[in-house]
């Protein structure tokens, strides 16, 4: 066995001690239990507090395990939590763009619609929360694929219209473009006459936890087949606002 780093071992011992009982522990108690000088402990504790693995109770000055550590194993953000945190910004996005707004997350190779705001024209519309969209043929899906480390697509790529990207190589090029631009477009690739734009929502660690976007008639969003960039800014602004909120 090669060299080990003593301070990492000591940090691990502190975490084990804090996890072992229901009580918060003070420096003196930790020092006694570990047989270490308080000065050494202070430095390690300060570092553990900085990275969020340990918290210090402001009232008692004692230490306990930190929230970051407790959430380490679960990289996933509850979809209902995401909707609750995003709802104000999704409303504002639909309001500004005058199009329907959508939030999706990846679910078994599909986009699961977790939030849907009607186009604000008070026409008859049906709530689509809980429905699925194809990842390769939707703007939300392209964003989610582009940033997904496991990159799950369902093959073969099903064509929905003559514009659907059905070739895996072309899709990879498209996802590369999404990563460089930071947003995705879908130009009549799912339904004739409809286009969509989406951008990534990230959590406090920078991991993409969902995508938000708008969808509407090609005549409004992309007259003559060219996307109006103002819609792209609305979508990216909304994505950034939610990302900022999640970082709090």
């Amino acid at each position, binding site marked *: 066995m090669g060299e080990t780093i003593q301070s990492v071992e000591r940090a691990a011992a502190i975490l084990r001690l804090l996890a072992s009982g229901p009580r918060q522990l003070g420096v003196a108690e930790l020092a006694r239990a570990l047989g270490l000088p308080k000065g050494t402990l202070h430095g390690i504790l300060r570092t553990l507090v900085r990275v969020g693995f340990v918290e210090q109770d402001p009232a008692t000055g004692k230490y306990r395990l930190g929230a970051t550590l407790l959430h380490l194993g679960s990289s996933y953000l*509850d979809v*209902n*939590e995401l909707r*609750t945190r995003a709802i104000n910004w999704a409303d504002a996005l639909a*309001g500004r763009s005058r199009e329907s707004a959508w939030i999706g997350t990846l679910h078994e190779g599909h986009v699961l619609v977790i939030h849907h705001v009607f186009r604000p024209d008070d026409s008859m519309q049906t*709530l689509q929360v809980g429905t699925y969209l194809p990842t390769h043929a939707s703007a939300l899906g392209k964003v989610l694929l582009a940033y997904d480390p496991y990159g799950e697509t369902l093959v073969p790529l099903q064509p929905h219209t003559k514009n659907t990207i059905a070739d895996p190589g072309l899709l990879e090029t498209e996802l590369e473009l999404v990563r460089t631009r930071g947003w995705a477009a879908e130009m009549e690739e799912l339904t004739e006459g409809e286009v969509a734009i989406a951008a990534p929502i990230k959590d406090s660690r920078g991991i993409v936890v969902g995508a938000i976007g708008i969808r509407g008639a090609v005549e409004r969003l992309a007259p003559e087949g060219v996307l109006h960039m103002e819609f792209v800014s609305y979508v990216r602004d909304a994505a950034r606002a939610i990302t900022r909120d999640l970082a709090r």
Partner: protein
Amino acid sequence: MPRPDYVAAIDQGTTSSRCIVFDQAGHIVSVAQREHRQIFPRPGWVEHDAAEIWQAVQGVLADALGGLDGQIAALGITNQRETTVLWDRATGQPVCPAIVWQDTRTAPLTHALAEHEQLFKEKAGLPLTTYFSGPKIRWLLDEHPGLRERAERGEVLFGTMDSWLLWNLTGRHITDVTNASRTMLMNIHTLAWDEELLAALDVPRAMLPEIRPSAEIYGRTRGGFPVASALGDQQAALFGQTCFAPGETKSTYGSGSFLLMNTGHEPVVSKHGLLTTVGYQIGDTPATYALEGAIAVTGSLVQWLRDNLGLISSAAEIETLAKTVDDNGGCYFVPAFSGLFAPHWRSDARGVIAGLTGFVTKGHIARAVLEATAWQTREVVDAMNADSGLDLTTLRADGGMTANNLLMQTLADVLAVPVIRPMVSETTALGAAYAAGLATGYWPDIDSLRANWHKAAEWRPAIDETAREQEYRNWKKAVARTLDWVEQ
């Protein structure tokens, strides 16, 4: 194109203070939020620290307005209602903890005042319960030695949260008419403090703020922009949902839930357990009244599951937990934590989980928690229909809980009408912004506000009448089990 300036609103709520900036189309531009402590010194008592709240409000103002200097046309205020603050006129410091609307310590006092019940109903439009400010003021004056004498000399001042914020923002001791209508001290017909009501509650006139309309320029902040509206949070939500015509109704889902119907320029007396309240008064126009169904505990029950039981780690997770099962498994949760409010008004009731068997899991309890919000709404909708002689045809819902899709679907199922969420679920802040914008000419008239209202989502009923009626019967049985718990 909208003008490049904005209207801001402070929403000083029961659990948190928010500042939200809106543009002319009513879209949110920025939001800041801070929570404050809920202090529970003993069972049934709920207190806030008004100084801490003022700190939080200053904080959210700075956060939300940062970078928008010089672009704020007006500031509106909306607030948790009835919560009672007493402060020292000379130092501006609170003289005791604020008693929160949910607090039930005044129950014995309200029994002692029973001879005046009819007077309160006729003049204040309110039932005699622990909910309103009057008994809370009286309790503080009785319990704290020397306070009554200082109040009589005008050295100690009373205010609801609107007053407390207006005092700190503008230096004036004023309140708006909607907040005043929740004190049991204001005559709802004359919109003035009433000697008979003051005498019944034994509250000195000298400590009360001046009653002003809900929208007018009250003064200016140190930042130099006009403070131009104040409304209780539920009245603000009514305004934000643009319920400007008689019969228009909204229901707001926050800590508690409140169904309000605009009844026009006449106060309507309820025969079915609803309150008569002032809806709003814009400048020197006549006041608009509302009938209100107040439910004390809805979102705060979700909070309780999170904080006191630890079954969930965020409010939104209740939906995830509830969806682990298909139904309530036979269990019903009546959260009579502060007694039962509308339409029962039973301060002797306490919470019950009924129908428990070994089969019931935490998923079923999560369902029962959400269903409790829906059934309590059903009870006040039934009362509203009976009082108004009209049948509610759609429910316009807003507030934090409307992010919960399962709850919205359950509401549609239980009420047998479509449930609609408007484009802005923060209608409380929006209403205060609207009123402040009207007072300062940022918006020309209420029609321009109506044009901002859009449907963001709609849920349609999906269960049959037999199932609905069976569930309602079970709910009513569970409610019956909460009664007569506290021995008077």
